[in-house]
């Protein structure tokens, strides 16, 4: 089906099902129960999981396949968001023109930055992309204020022209009239599940993005990208020019980032410079490595895990902690709260750092490798299942030399 073999078709169907049932998967606990605060099935979080999943899938095409580690992909996310908001201001609150322009602009931007940065490899490439990201952030924050509205960020105003929208057009972001923020809540057995239009739009696009990445992984082009990571010298002496291959991968991943940025703006129509900060680019690196760089599903799992944990951990404050430990003697309770306090709420990045260190040290292939190990415990001798190099977590994710 769709140019895929049986195994990949099955794989794609599993991914589609997982995406479709996200509102259930992320809402495992009944409302009002003690565990309810670990539920993540609300629209904003689910949208972010899908959008950052797209971002990470694209990043993985560059980093996972060619080994070129870019810290500058936040710039493309930002370009995508600004482009999309401009389209909403000028043309229509329909998200389609915004998403299209977001991909075109980020693609052009990636072509320029990639053309310059890819003259170097390894650590020098990473530093160049980092420099470009920081430059883009400063441009957006101050220099290009007429275009980006600087510190305040670009927003929708009631008096924007929106030349394609008629008198009665929706003032909210929509897809041909379908309001992105519209949700249907379904209550059953004390559970509450939310089905949000915006999430499903993102989910459909994420599945398409995943399918394209699957095709690239299986294509001769994908094989060439893995060859770049493996041995550029041999590649040159085999009559292949590594530069256009890496540049193509860079532009594709930049367009994925632009698409993600456009979708972020489509869900919530504003764009700020902080979206271009290099920490956002660092986050996608962490997502990809945490999930498993070079694997198909890893980046999506990494994005989901980080966004979910971020929301859960950020919500926990001292009151919640005191609630948990209220059964303990007073001194003990205060002591435990004091220990845990730096790791939750605003300190959630400390937890992320620890988690990242643990994964990189003990599970260099990321969550995908963890999953494989668990499967290996249950399955005796998985022989005959022709091993697929793309599904294998690469040993340690390393940077191209």
């Amino acid at each position: 089906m769709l140019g895929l073999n049986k195994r990949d078709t099955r794989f794609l169907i599993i991914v589609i099902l997982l995406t479709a049932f996200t509102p259930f998967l992320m809402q495992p606990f009944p409302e009002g129960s003690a565990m309810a605060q670990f539920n993540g099935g609300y629209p904003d979080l689910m949208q972010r999981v899908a959008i950052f999943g797209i971002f990470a899938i694209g990043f993985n095409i560059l980093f996972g396949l060619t080994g070129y580690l870019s810290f500058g992909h936040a710039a493309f996310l930002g370009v995508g968001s600004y482009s999309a908001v401009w389209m909403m201001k000028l043309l229509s609150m329909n998200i389609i023109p915004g998403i299209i322009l977001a991909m075109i602009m980020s693609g052009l931007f990636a072509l320029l930055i990639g053309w310059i940065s890819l003259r170097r490899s390894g650590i020098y490439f990473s530093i160049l992309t980092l420099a470009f990201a920081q430059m883009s952030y400063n441009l957006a924050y101050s220099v290009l204020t007429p275009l980006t509205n600087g510190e305040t960020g670009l927003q929708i105003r009631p008096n924007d022209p929106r030349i394609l929208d008629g008198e009665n057009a929706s003032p909210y972001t929509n897809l041909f009239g379908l309001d992105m923020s519209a949700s249907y809540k379904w209550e059953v057995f004390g559970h509450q599940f939310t089905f949000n239009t915006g999430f499903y739009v993102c989910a459909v696009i994420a599945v398409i993005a995943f399918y394209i990445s699957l095709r690239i992984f299986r294509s001769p082009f994908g094989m060439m990208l893995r060859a770049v990571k493996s041995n550029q010298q041999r590649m040159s002496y085999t009559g292949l020019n590594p530069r256009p291959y890496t540049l193509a991968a860079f532009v594709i991943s930049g367009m994925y980032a632009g698409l993600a940025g456009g979708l972020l703006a489509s869900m919530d129509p504003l764009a700020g410079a902080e979206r271009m900060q290099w920490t956002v680019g660092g986050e996608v690196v962490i997502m990809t490595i945490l999930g498993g760089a070079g694997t198909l599903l890893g980046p999506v799992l990494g994005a989901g895990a980080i966004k979910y944990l971020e929301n859960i951990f950020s919500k926990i404050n001292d009151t919640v902690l005191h609630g948990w430990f209220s059964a303990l003697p007073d001194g003990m309770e205060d002591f435990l709260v004091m220990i845990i306090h730096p790791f939750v709420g605003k300190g959630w990045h400390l937890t992320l750092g620890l988690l990242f260190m643990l994964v990189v040290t003990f599970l260099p292939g990321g969550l995908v490798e963890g999953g494989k190990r668990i499967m290996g415990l249950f399955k005796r001798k998985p022989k005959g299942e022709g091993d697929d190099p793309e599904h294998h977590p690469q040993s340690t994710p390393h940077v191209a030399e």
Partner: protein
Amino acid sequence: MGILEVKNVGKRFGGLQALGNVNLSVAENTVHAIIGPNGAGKSTLLNVLVGKLIPDTGSVMFDGQSVLGRKPHEINQMGISRVFQTPEIFGDLSVLENVMIPCFARRDGSFRMHAFETVSQERDIIDEAEHILNDVNMLDKRDMHAASLSRGDKRRLEMAMCLVQKPRLLLLDEPTAGMARADTNNTIDLLKHIRDTRDITMAIIEHDMHVVFSLAERITVLAQGTPLVEDTPENIKGHPKVKEAYLGEQAQE
């Protein structure tokens, strides 16, 4: 007129004249060895031939076209393949994929955006790759990770990757360096097999005289950046100048 014509090539690194005035002609369909003591400029010459170094003076013509100033991948596309001193293969890829990549390079040129085709449906390329693996007796290892091969197998794989491109000139940089005797003999047999079954020109840079004398039809002796003599193996063996270059002052004592 040989397939490869090197004329008056000189290359200087700072104070060191690595290549003095090299003239060399490699005739089509011969095995031509370039030997010489350490520091004679063999590797510099090879790097000039593959486009890694640009010489200060002189010209290098391959089949009537200049090689100088071209990038390594362009030179390869002209029909020159290179085997490295330590085998350069795609370690993270499978053995079959290693051989498929040069097939794609030959069919599609130095870059093609074939992102929506599927590797497993490229029947012609797979057949060709399997065929060459069969030729070098590695078909049973086709799904192995290339990095996990033995040194000798890596060498054979690299050779297969070069041969599948059907190059007109194969450059070999000390193909048996650091190999055990058995592996060396296997490599010699493989090269002999290639020499006898294909229309191919080979230029070998080699230290090991056993390898040189069992393969080469012409030998050029290089010393201090200039060719001393060029002759058949029989004549080279007893040549006084060669003895002198190799053994230095000891020979004169």
